[in-house]
């Protein structure tokens, strides 16, 4: 499968996880990994399956590197009805009120333009005991299986 991993990051944690997912998938798939800051809505390609990895910053906001993308999505209102994506969130339950609001915003942005979300949004909790990649790699395998079915 052709897969593009898009990450929205502010501290670099989501970037590191995106690279881990890329490394894990590369043997079986054609995988590109890109910062959302370098992604324009016009770049979406129906031949790709998009894995989005995104954190939350401030008071439930998108991380800095995802903000220009969100603005471009609002301004350009692209038709993404032939695009399939899945979202993985990085969060911190210390801030339970806004836990994983960033990735939810990102999923909403995509769905508002008609893109089809595959699988459930899954979240890693930085205040929990799991490593992010231990949660994200099974998630990636599951959504890829679902997208390929």
């Amino acid at each position, binding site marked *: 499968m052709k897969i593009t991993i898009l990450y929205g990051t502010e501290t*670099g944690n989501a970037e590191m996880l995106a690279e881990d997912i890329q490394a894990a998938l590369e043997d079986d798939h054609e995988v590109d990994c890109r910062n959302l800051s370098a992604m324009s809505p016009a770049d979406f390609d129906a031949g790709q399956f998009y894995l989005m990895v995104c954190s939350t910053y401030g*008071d439930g906001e998108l991380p800095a590197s995802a903000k220009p993308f969100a603005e471009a999505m609002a301004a350009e209102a692209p038709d993404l009805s032939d695009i399939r994506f899945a979202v993985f969130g990085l969060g911190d339950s*210390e*801030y339970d009120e806004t836990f994983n609001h960033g990735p939810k915003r990102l999923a909403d942005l995509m769905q508002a333009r008609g893109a089809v979300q595959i699988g459930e949004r899954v979240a890693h909790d930085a205040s929990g005991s799991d490593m992010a990649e231990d949660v994200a790699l099974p998630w990636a395998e599951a959504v890829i299986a679902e997208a390929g079915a």
Partner: protein
Amino acid sequence: MTGKAAIVGAGPSGCYVAQALLKAAPDLEVDLIEALPVPYGLVRYGVAADHQGTKAVARQFARVFERQGARFYGNVTVGRDISLEALRGAYDAVVLAAGLSGDRRLGVPGDDLAGIYGAGGLTRALYDHPDAMALPDLGRFPLIIGNGNVAVDLLRLLAKHPQELEGSDLGVAASQWLGASQIESLAIVGRAPAADAKFDPVMIKELAKLGHVKIRVVNAAPDAGDKTSEVLAALDGTGQGPRRITFRFGLTPVAVLGDGHVQAVRFAGADGAEDIACSSVLTAIGFEPAPGALPRAEAPGLYAVGWFQRGPRGTIPENRADALALADRILADLSPDTAKQGRAVLAGLAGVVDYEGWCRIDAAELAAAAEGRARAKIQSRPEMLAIATGK
């Protein structure tokens, strides 16, 4: 691209510079030189013990050493063990990322009385920094001066019940100290009006979860559209616990009063002078270079980054952005001189802790973690060195 870079200070800014340099140019020789035997700076000794999620960036930094090939030279003080000039002679680029460890003083009469503590000094004591003072007796009603995240971190820690520190990395001594706390009330006072306070709103919201406090925000009128004043207003009246927290705004300290030991702080406000009685004063009004710190001026091949360069503003993401921009600048400037000896200049130094040494300290700290704690930091430098060298 080849070339040699030394980064002085292995805190978040220095680690992010190393990460970005090696990502763009994996063949660079990048060395992080750190005065302490352990890396990660404020991630270890500044980020609050109960904000373990924020400390997760340390995993990225570990990879800078483990996968990207940076080397760690811990327990090396530039200016004492090796001169800055020697480093500049040996490396194509030298980056000063030494942070700011000095507490800014109030600068008013009486600011040298006993019972006044800087936030940095107190934070180091709470978090088992090797050079920390002993934890002081703050009395029954400490007064915090400052309206930034450092002030609110201290407020939250001091207000917490021991049970609320589950999962933190607060050490045994600090936990006992907090558990034995006599604090009945905490006042936090800022010079600016609430709408101009520098707190991150999310840090204020977090206070609403404290279980043993009753919070009052004086004159908590929300400014429409201003998030900080809105969350402060919403915080007013929160909680029914025994420990009282009072937020005050628009008060400028003009003198610390007391006979030998602080008894009150005199403030100037819109309604004239006001004395607020207190058992101790905690200042969280910014940081400055420690005495004898490295020079801050840049020169060809010499760069500065992070708080050391910009002053004590911005959290980890802003310092990362700054570090990434600096890495780009260094790579654009870099004209490698093959005659530079690089890390060989550090070879003769005694007592250097390398990355494997830090891993031994890290493993020992994780293994020693008490029930309900993420780790047990080793505070003593000799003990760190003994573990690092396996002796």
